């Protein structure tokens, strides 16, 4: 990671010496890092611990139950045009979320170019992908609830499946929903030109950090909950 430091002399890390220097100074530890960005990172770190607690509890109940765990491949299969495809909805949701991360990364870049229109449009696209994701999740929840999945039981095996499913995906879905509101707000402000006076588009990057984090959490949920 540190080897590629040469591209950007402005915010570059200069090895361990810079680390010691940063941490031993007064007032600010992260030199030339926007305070909002540092704070967002620290918030995301705390959120990492929350999601890790959920995933670790899921691991604990799953590996301590004597009943068979429902086969997620079957549970999340959809029948499309007469073919039963395992996990297809979750795969599409994954692609939607990755695409939203892609448009967000581009939005951050256009923000720094101070291209307000493109930035706002790309952020809008990101929010739309987010809405699509949450809608698909609502569909998935409805399907499972109709099939009899409850936090205390389900027709296929270990009763803990339902509580893990609703807790983990619900909390993640809530993050996506909040992200959609957050991004829409920032997109409108960018479009109006609120940040033009200071010429500082770091806000877009900070919002982007939150959004990428939501995608990052999904990577872990997808691997541990859906695929495992």
């Amino acid at each position, binding site marked *: *990671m540190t080897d*590629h430091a040469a*591209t*950007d*002399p*402005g*915010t570059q*890390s*200069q090895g361990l010496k*810079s*680390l010691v220097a*940063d*941490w031993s100074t007064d007032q600010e530890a*992260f*030199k*030339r*890092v*926007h305070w909002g960005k*540092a704070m967002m*990172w*620290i918030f995301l*770190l705390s959120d*990492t*611990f929350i999601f*890790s*607690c959920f995933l670790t*509890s899921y*691991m*604990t109940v799953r*590996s*301590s*139950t*004597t009943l068979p765990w429902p086969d997620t*491949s079957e549970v999340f299969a959809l029948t499309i045009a007469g073919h039963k495809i395992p*996990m297809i909805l979750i*795969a599409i949701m*994954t692609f939607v979320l*990755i695409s939203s*991360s*892609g448009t967000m*990364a*581009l939005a*951050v*870049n256009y923000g*720094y*170019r101070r*291209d307000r229109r493109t930035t706002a449009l790309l952020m809008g696209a990101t929010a739309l992908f987010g809405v699509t994701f949450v809608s698909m999740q609502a569909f998935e929840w409805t399907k499972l609830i109709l099939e009899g999945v409850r936090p205390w039981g389900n027709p296929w095996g270990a009763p803990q499946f339902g509580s893990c499913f609703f807790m983990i995906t619900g909390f993640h879905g809530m993050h996506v929903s909040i992200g959609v509101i957050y991004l829409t707000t920032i997109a409108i402000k960018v479009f109006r030109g609120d940040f033009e006076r200071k010429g*500082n588009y*770091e806000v877009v*990057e900070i919002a*982007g950090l939150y959004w*990428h984090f939501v*995608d990052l959490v999904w*990577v*872990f949920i*997808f*691997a541990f909950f*859906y*695929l*495992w």
Partner: protein
Amino acid sequence: MEHEAVHPGVQPVLAPPSPDTKHGQQHPLGIYFVIWALLFVLSTFSFLVDYFRFEGFQRWALIVIFMWLKAGLIVAIFMHMRWERLALKYAILIPPLLLAVLVALMSIESNYTYWTRVIFFGVLGGPPG
């Protein structure tokens, strides 16, 4: 970048720009498209692991490898961690390692619970309690 040349007067009207803005996280667009494509490919691979029903060690090894590659790409490039200061990198990336302790403890605990259930409720169990 061209836009900075187009509006040279806009920047310093009210407040001086923060030192970060000028050479902030500005990278060529191409890298984002490459990462975007890579994430698609890796997700497809994880999906195929399920589709072709890999089992056992193979299954979770592949899932975890693809997972970490995806997570790494998102954090390093999309979240720009690769270009951040070392102090920030360490402050954010080291603490989550502590979670390994939690995972280890809970896996010991769940193993104990599992065997307790097997011994007291029988292997096929039924709802505990």
